[in-house]
């Protein structure tokens, strides 16, 4: 029998530490999931009459919340993603080095602002500022369903919320995209240049395709934040439990997280369980969205440049 090569202490310590860190994530995730399921169960199995007694009605109550959550996050992403990719490209490939550095710091700073500040800004600055614009939109393009009237008198609509959310998720998407774009192998950029590509064509041929998986991952992180954002939405939005695509009216679908924050202090009995059950739904939405992103990334794995 041959003796096995002796394992080095450093290797073993490092392996154990890395494995421990990996396991810890799973444990934390499992703990949250178990908590949510255990606390949500009473509301999920309760009869409508029991729920009514505590002032809620779970099953009709959830779809508008899901809709509001996804709708607000989707709108935020719609604004933030093109802007973030644009800023990241500017920093990584267009701006002079000094300006790029300054811009990078400014973007990172945006990420450090607490969401309650964004909420205040949304109420005090953005909402009054966009009111004339909303009125103009309703009066002039009100035939378009998204801009249908009557216009909100306060400006605290789902569109305003989406803009606030977009500003909040912009830094993380930008910072990640910038890092990914900077990783583009110079070899591929030179290949494009040598074929006679203009700067934009280099970006199109080499930088963006190479960064595709990174852009999707960055988007998912941003989306996660938008889906779960509580404070800013709770402060800015004038909420209702409805399903409506209209962007500018005073009745707006609220999000799961904001709804929990607003309702929790007054909830009793099964009402608390029902709120936690909506939290479980949010957990599931986030999970599904991330799984979808994985599928998209893996579908063109062979072409990722990682091989």
């Amino acid at each position, binding site marked *: 029998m041959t003796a096995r090569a002796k394992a080095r202490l450093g290797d073993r310590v490092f392996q154990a530490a890395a494995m421990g860190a990996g396991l810890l994530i799973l444990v934390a995730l499992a703990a949250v999931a178990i908590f949510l399921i255990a606390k949500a169960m009473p509301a999920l199995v309760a009869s409508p009459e029991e729920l009514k007694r505590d002032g809620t009605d779970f099953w009709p109550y959830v779809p508008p919340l899901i809709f509001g959550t996804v709708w607000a996050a989707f709108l935020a992403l719609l604004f933030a993603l093109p802007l973030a990719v644009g800023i990241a490209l500017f920093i990584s490939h267009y701006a002079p080095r000094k300006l790029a550095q300054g811009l990078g710091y400014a973007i990172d700073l945006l990420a450090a602002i607490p969401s309650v500040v964004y909420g205040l800004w949304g109420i005090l600055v953005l909402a009054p500022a966009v009111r004339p614009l909303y009125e103009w939109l309703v009066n002039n393009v009100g035939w378009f369903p998204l801009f249908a009237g009557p216009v909100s008198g306060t400006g605290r609509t789902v569109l305003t919320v989406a803009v606030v959310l977009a500003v909040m998720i912009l830094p993380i998407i930008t910072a990640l995209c910038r890092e990914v774009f900077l990783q583009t192998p110079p*070899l591929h950029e*030179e290949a494009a*240049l040598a074929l*006679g590509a*203009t700067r934009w064509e280099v970006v199109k041929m080499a930088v963006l*395709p190479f960064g595709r998986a990174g852009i999707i991952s960055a988007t998912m992180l941003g989306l996660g934040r938008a889906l779960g954002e509580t404070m800013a939405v709770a402060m800015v939005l004038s909420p209702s439990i409805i399903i409506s695509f209209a962007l500018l009216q005073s009745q707006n679908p609220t999000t799961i997280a904001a709804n929990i924050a607003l309702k929790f202090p007054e909830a009793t009995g099964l009402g608390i369980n029902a709120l936690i059950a909506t939290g479980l739904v949010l957990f599931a939405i986030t999970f599904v969205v991330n799984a979808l992103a994985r599928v998209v990334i893996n579908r063109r794995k062979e072409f990722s*440049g990682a091989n």
Partner: protein
Amino acid sequence: MSKRIEVENLNVFYGKFLAVEGVSLTIEPRTVTAFIGPSGCGKSTLLRTLNRMHEVIPGARVDGRVAIDGKNLYDLDVDPVLVRRQVGMVFQRPNPFPTMSIKENVLAGVKLNNGRISRSDADDLVEKSLKGANLWKEVKDRLDRPGSSLSGGQQQRLCIARAIAVSPDVLLMDEPCSALDPISTLAIEDLIEELKRDYTIVIVTHNMQQASRVSDRTAFFNIAGTGLPGRLIEVDDTATIFERPTEKSTEDYISGRFG
């Protein structure tokens, strides 16, 4: 489509650093010219001035003249993007676009500048270019596979196919075989022999046997020491350079006494 290149009094800079000094040489159409010399002598740098790739490095610039068929590439009204469409380049390490299929790689240059091409024309061009690069037989059944699925030598031939698909006047090769095994190297050398019929080829190589095998003319570059600019020592027919060089340093280099 093959053209003459004239370099006159060319100085090449990286910022304030003079990397190559006072080069003048003429490269005839339908010939293979090899640049040889020790590392750091500026041969790759010089090569990259022939398609204005040098200036993509921040601070890099040249003065002097590089003319293709009499037109100076460095005239103010010349768009470097158009120069690079006219002068193809193959790099030291194979660099097919990993996010594109074999076919898309070949067509990459053609589709630039909103160039449109019908599907049948595209298929013909892919076949013609891959045949021109001696790669068609090996990949014709898997044109939709990623370019990065090929071996190193095949990838390099794919890069050559990509470069010739746009019908350039000149083909620059920067140590195209240095990352390849001997068999792939042989395949590329045979290919250079064939490409010579249609293109003016300039190749940088560290391999002197390769220079003597593939080139008609050889230019020897040298540096006096670290931090000093590289210079063109002599340029002549390859046979002359390898058998009866005029300069002592050329003879020392090719006989392996230094470098």
